[in-house]
């Protein structure tokens, strides 16, 4: 128990030592946020889980009946299934690309003077703080059929027809990779900063070359940070909405666009709730995956 708490106890010595007055201050401090979270976070999520087990009737949710139909529909309907698989593959592709590209970038930054490091980080942080819609719009300008890249290539005579750079998985991949690279870069760079440079010198002193040092020392020691970054990276990819909507278009929907359509266009809330629960369940996959990988490395 905290010393502060003990110090704040009311004198109840005469009543017997065993009884300790409850300290209300932490309770009072926690209550507002806790209450808000219960009402506006736990209750809605719980309600959605419940909704996903009710059938959808003509007049809305039929709360008197229970069913697994919504889950069956989401996972077996061929249209929905394609979307599910597309969501997962794009997420995986973005994660892999981020994991591969993060080391050359982080190593490069780590080797610069502290002032240069700050500027380089700022360059990577800026896109993060730019509105997602704006970023996606930038890519639309670049990758679109009449966009800058296609126009440039055509005027140079390199292509005759515009390359399909967007309204497909590639466009979504580019947009998400661009938006979410920072979530992997920040922790890996921070872990490199935290590395005991003597370990690196010791390895060099023992005759290890650059590549060996990176492969045997730096990468293993920053792996936990990479894992943490990848979890956020994948969670963000799974739930990205605007980027796939603008860069993928109607033909390259992902699960979040599908949820939007079901909930706000079809107005089928039970099915929409089930789509949400499936998406939520999927976000635990990266966490479990990273945990499992981490464990197998240790043993």
């Amino acid at each position: 128990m905290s010393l502060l708490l003990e110090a704040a106890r009311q004198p109840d010595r005469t009543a017997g030592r065993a009884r300790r007055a409850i300290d209300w201050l932490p309770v009072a401090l926690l209550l507002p946020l806790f209450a808000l979270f219960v009402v506006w976070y736990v209750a809605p999520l719980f309600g959605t889980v419940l909704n996903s087990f009710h059938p959808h009737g003509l007049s809305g949710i039929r709360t008197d009946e229970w069913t697994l139909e919504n889950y069956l529909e989401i996972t077996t309907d061929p249209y929905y299934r394609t979307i599910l698989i597309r969501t997962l593959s794009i997420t995986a592709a973005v994660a892999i690309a981020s994991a591969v590209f993060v080391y050359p970038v982080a190593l490069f930054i780590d080797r610069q003077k502290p002032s240069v490091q700050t500027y380089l980080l700022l360059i990577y942080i800026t896109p993060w703080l730019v509105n997602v819609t704006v970023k996606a719009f930038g890519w639309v300008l670049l990758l679109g059929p009449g966009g800058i890249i296609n126009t440039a290539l055509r005027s140079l005579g390199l292509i005759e027809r515009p390359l399909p750079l967007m309204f497909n998985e590639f466009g979504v991949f580019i947009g998400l990779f661009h938006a979410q690279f920072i979530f992997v870069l920040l922790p890996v760079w921070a872990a490199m900063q935290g590395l005991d440079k003597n370990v690196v010198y010791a390895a060099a002193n023992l005759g290890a070359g650059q590549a060996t040092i990176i492969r045997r020392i730096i990468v293993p020691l920053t792996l936990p940070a990479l894992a943490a970054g990848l979890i956020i990276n994948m969670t963000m990819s799974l739930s990205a909405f605007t980027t796939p909507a603008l860069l993928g278009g109607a033909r390259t929907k992902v699960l979040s666009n599908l949820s939007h359509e079901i909930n706000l266009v079809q107005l089928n809330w039970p099915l929409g709730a089930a789509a949400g629960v499936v998406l939520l369940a999927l976000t635990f996959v990266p966490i479990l995956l990273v945990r499992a990988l981490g464990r197998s490395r240790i043993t």
Partner: protein
Amino acid sequence: MLLIFNLAMIGFMLLPISIIVWMSFTPEAFFVLPFDAFSLRWYSAALEHDGFRNSFLLSLRLAFVSATIAAVLSFLAAYAITRLKAPGAKGLDSFFLSPLLIPHVVLGIALLQFVNSVGLYNNFWALAAAHIIVIVPFVMRLLIASMADIPAEIEWAALNLGASRLRVMFGIVLPICAPGLIAGYVFAFIISFDEIVVTIFMAGPSQQTLPVRMYGYLSDQFDPIVAAVSSLLILFAAAVVVLLERIGGLKLLTR
């Protein structure tokens, strides 16, 4: 090799942003990069556009309200968790950070269905409460980190000199972790300002925040006015980055 790769990466990172800014100065009525003639016509169009202006003001108000409430409530809770070691502190801290791991789409669905069933659809405070849930983890993380750095002796010393516990909380702990709180506030503000997913799901017709309006605009019409609005948002983001750097918030972000 490494240098070339990194220059390419930096180019890649800045490319879409710089293209928008460049494009926003076009004098044409469609998307072409201006090379010899530059114009501010889309900026004046953006500023005169009622929809964008109202949305901007709404977003500003929403971000201000939710970041302020989130900062206050998070400070109280973080203090109880880290300094008073409230019962179940460990679990509570993960609980308040957990919205970070819940996809915004899921939150959006849940809040859409919830808000409609309790009859608060299209209500400003209902939307603000949703934004608070989304941004609390960011404020909370920075606050917990900066509070954990304060030695217990500092608080004991203040109590020992006769300060009340509330005095210690607001007169000692609050000013000491002010940099973390300010960084968290700025962060929360911009996240709320930019939030689109939860908002697009649960917001009512009168709650067209700026990102929602831009998204809607991009989905059905295309003219350089969006480029001008986007450029203004980029400027805004750049200002935030500079601000965060000034108050040392960047170091806190990597913890």
